[in-house]
C-alpha cells in the first residue's frame, strides 16, 4: 500500500469503491500529501464530508475523527464544530460540486462571510454523477447529460463571465484556488496554503468522471481520452493569458490570515463580555 495511505488512512477504505479511472482518488491523495508535508498528524485533523461520490468515497477513510453531514449542510455543522473544537484542530471537508455550489451554496457563502476556519475541497465531477449523471452547476454548457439530453442549456457557475470563486471572494473567503485532479505539485502546494490559512479556504478541484459524465457528455469511457479532454480544457489562471478554458487553475485569491477568523471572533467577544461584566 502507498506509505502515505498506510500512515493516514484506514485499510478498510482502501481501495475505495470508486469506478475505474475516477479522478477522486487523485484529489484524496493530494490532500493527504499536503497534510503530511505540513507535518500534521491524524490527531490534528477532523475530516468531514458531504454525500455523493465525494462524500461516500472519502468518509471514514481518515484514521482520525470523521463525520459526514447531510447534503449541503456540512458548512453549518462545521460552524458549530469549529466553535466547540480546540483551536488547533484543522477541519478539512471533502464535498461535491452539487453539495458546495448547489444545495449548500447559501451556507458556503455564510461561512465565507464569517471567515470560518475550514478547508473546503470541492471534488467536482461536473454534475450529479452518483445519481447516474445529471447536469449540475459546473457542467460545461452544451454538454449532454442524463437530464440534459439536448445539451446543458442553462448558465452555470463557471462560464459566461461568471466564476463561483469570484462570488466567494466577494463573500469574504480568504483563500481560493482551483486545480484539476490531474495537476500535481502545484495543487498540493495550494492545498497546503488552504490548510494553513486560519480562515475560510476553498479549493475547487474538477476531476474526471469516466462512467457517467464522460460516458454521456464525451461519448467515451476510455480514461486516456477523458484525461486528454481535461488537459485540453485546462488553463493556467495567469493574468493576460486569455482563454475560454473550462478549468482556470491556480490561486484565485490569497488573503490568508488577513482578517479575524470566526470562532476566534466569537471567543474574543465572549471574553470581552466576561471582562466587562465580572
Amino acid at each position, binding site marked *: 500500500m502507498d506509505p502515505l495511505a498506510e500512515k493516514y488512512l484506514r485499510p478498510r477504505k482502501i481501495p475505495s469503491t470508486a469506478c475505474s479511472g475516477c479522478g477522486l482518488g487523485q484529489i484524496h491523495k493530494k490532500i493527504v500529501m499536503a497534510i503530511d508535508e505540513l507535518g500534521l498528524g491524524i490527531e490534528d485533523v477532523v475530516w468531514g464530508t458531504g454525500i455523493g461520490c465525494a462524500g461516500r468515497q472519502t468518509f471514514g477513510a481518515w484514521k482520525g475523527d470523521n463525520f459526514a453531514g*447531510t*447534503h449541503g449542510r456540512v458548512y453549518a455543522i462545521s*460552524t*458549530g464544530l469549529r*466553535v*466547540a473544537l480546540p483551536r488547533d484542530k484543522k477541519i478539512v471537508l471533502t464535498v461535491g460540486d452539487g453539495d458546495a455550489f448547489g444545495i449548500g451554496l447559501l451556507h458556503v457563502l455564510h461561512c465565507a462571510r464569517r471567515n470560518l476556519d475550514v478547508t473546503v475541497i470541492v471534488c467536482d465531477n461536473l454534475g450529479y454523477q452518483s445519481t447516474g449523471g445529471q447536469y449540475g452547476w459546473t457542467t460545461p454548457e452544451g454538454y449532454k447529460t442524463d437530464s440534459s439530453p439536448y445539451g446543458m442549456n442553462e448558465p452555470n457557475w463557471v462560464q459566461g463571465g461568471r466564476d463561483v470563486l469570484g462570488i466567494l471572494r466577494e463573500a469574504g473567503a480568504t483563500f481560493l484556488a482551483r486545480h484539476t485532479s490531474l495537476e500535481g505539485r502545484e495543487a498540493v502546494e495550494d492545498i497546503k496554503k488552504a490548510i494553513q490559512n486560519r480562515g475560510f479556504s476553498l479549493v475547487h478541484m474538477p476531476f474526471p468522471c469516466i462512467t457517467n459524465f464522460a460516458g454521456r457528455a464525451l461519448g467515451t469511457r476510455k480514461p486516456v481520452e477523458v484525461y486528454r479532454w481535461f488537459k485540453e480544457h485546462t488553463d493556467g489562471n495567469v493574468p493576460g493569458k486569455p482563454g475560454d478554458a473550462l478549468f482556470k487553475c491556480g490561486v484565485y485569491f490569497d488573503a490568508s490570515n488577513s482578517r479575524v477568523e470566526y470562532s476566534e471572533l466569537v471567543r474574543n467577544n*465572549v471574553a470581552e463580555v466576561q471582562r466587562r461584566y465580572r
Partner: protein
Amino acid sequence: MKRVLETGNAAITEGAIAAGCRVFAGYPITPATEIAENMSRRLPQVGGYYLQAEDELAAMHIAVGSSLGGLKAMTATSGPGFILYADPYGWALGSEIPVVVVNAQRVGPVSGITGAPGQGEFYFSRYPTQGGNFETIVLAPASVQEALNLTVEAFYLAERFRMPVTLLADQLVTDGWESLSVPETPDDVAAMGLRVLPRRIHSGPEFYPASDEIDVPPVVLGHNTGAACSDWTPTEQGYDTEEVEAQHKHAYRLIYKVRNHRDLLRRYEAYYLDDNPEVVLVSYGSPARVAKSAVKRARERGLKVGGIRLIGLWPFPEELFTLPAKYLSVELNNDGQLVREVQRAVPKGSAVHFFGKCGELPTVAELQRMIDALLSGEPLPANRWEWEAW
C-alpha cells in the same frame, strides 16, 4: 435561587444555562425570538456562544455540530422553522447526537398567525424527519416554571438517550409572564429536583452498539477516538454501509432504546380519577390549565369529572388510559390531533370527543357546556367557527 416575574422564553433560557448549555444557534421567529435574544445576552456571561444562523436549517445543524464538538447545545423556533429542522433532526437522531429543540407552537399552517398560540405539531413532533425507524422524545410545558424545569430535563434526557429532545411549547407558555424560581447554583438545581448530566465522550470503537442500552456516551469529535458518524446507516464502528442487517440493528437501537425505557419518560398530571369519573378531559400545554379549571368547577358542582394533563407527549403514554369513560381532548387546533392518539389508547366502552380552538384558549364556560352535554347525553355544542356563516 432567585424569584422573578418572567416569560416562558426567559425560563427556557435559564433552564438551558442551568443544564450546561453553552451553544445556542437560532434564527429569529415569533414567538420564539426572545429565547434567541435572551441567549445572546446570557450565554456570553457564562462563557457560552450565541450563534445566529442564516436559516433554521443552518441553525439546527450548527447546534448539532457544536454538540458533536462536545458542547451542549440548543435551538429554538416556531412551526415554520421547525419544519426546516427536519434535515438536521434526522441527522442527530441517526447519528445519536444530543441536542435540545424548542418549538413555541403558533397558529398554522405555514406562517399562519404569528403571535397566537396553536398546537399543530403534535404529530409532526413525533415524525420530525423522514425515513421512520425511530422514536422521539417530546415534552410539553404548561407554565413558565415548568418550561424551565422541562428544559433542564430535556438536556438530561438528550444526554442519557443520545438524541434530540423536543420541548413542544406554545405561544402562551413562551410569551406568558409568571413568577419563576431560577436556580443560580448547582445546589439550587439539585434542591429544585432537577438533574444535570455532564457530557461524556465515547472512546470507541463500538460507537453504535446494536443494543437498546441508554447511558452510552455520545460521539464527540476532536479527541482522536477514531470516531466516525454520518448520515448513512452505520456499522457498529460508525462506517457507512448498505447492509440490511446493519440497518436492522440501527433501527432496533433507535426504536427500542426509547421504547424499552418508557418508564423514564412517562410524565403526566392526573387529577380526580380515583372515583371512576364519567368524563375525563385530556390536554397538554396551556389549554390544559383551562381544562383543569373546568374539571375543578365541575367537581364543585358535584359532577364526576377528571382530567389528565400530558407532559411527556412522545412516546405517547397510552398506558394511562385504563379507565372506560367519555374522554374529551382539548386542543389548540381545529382538526384534532391528540384526539386520535387518545382514541387509539382508550379501553373498550370508551368514547373520545374533541374540543378545539386555535389562536386563543378555550374558556371554562365552553368546556363546562361540553362536560354537561357529555354527562347528559345531549348533542355536543359545535365549535364556534362551525356556527358562523361562511
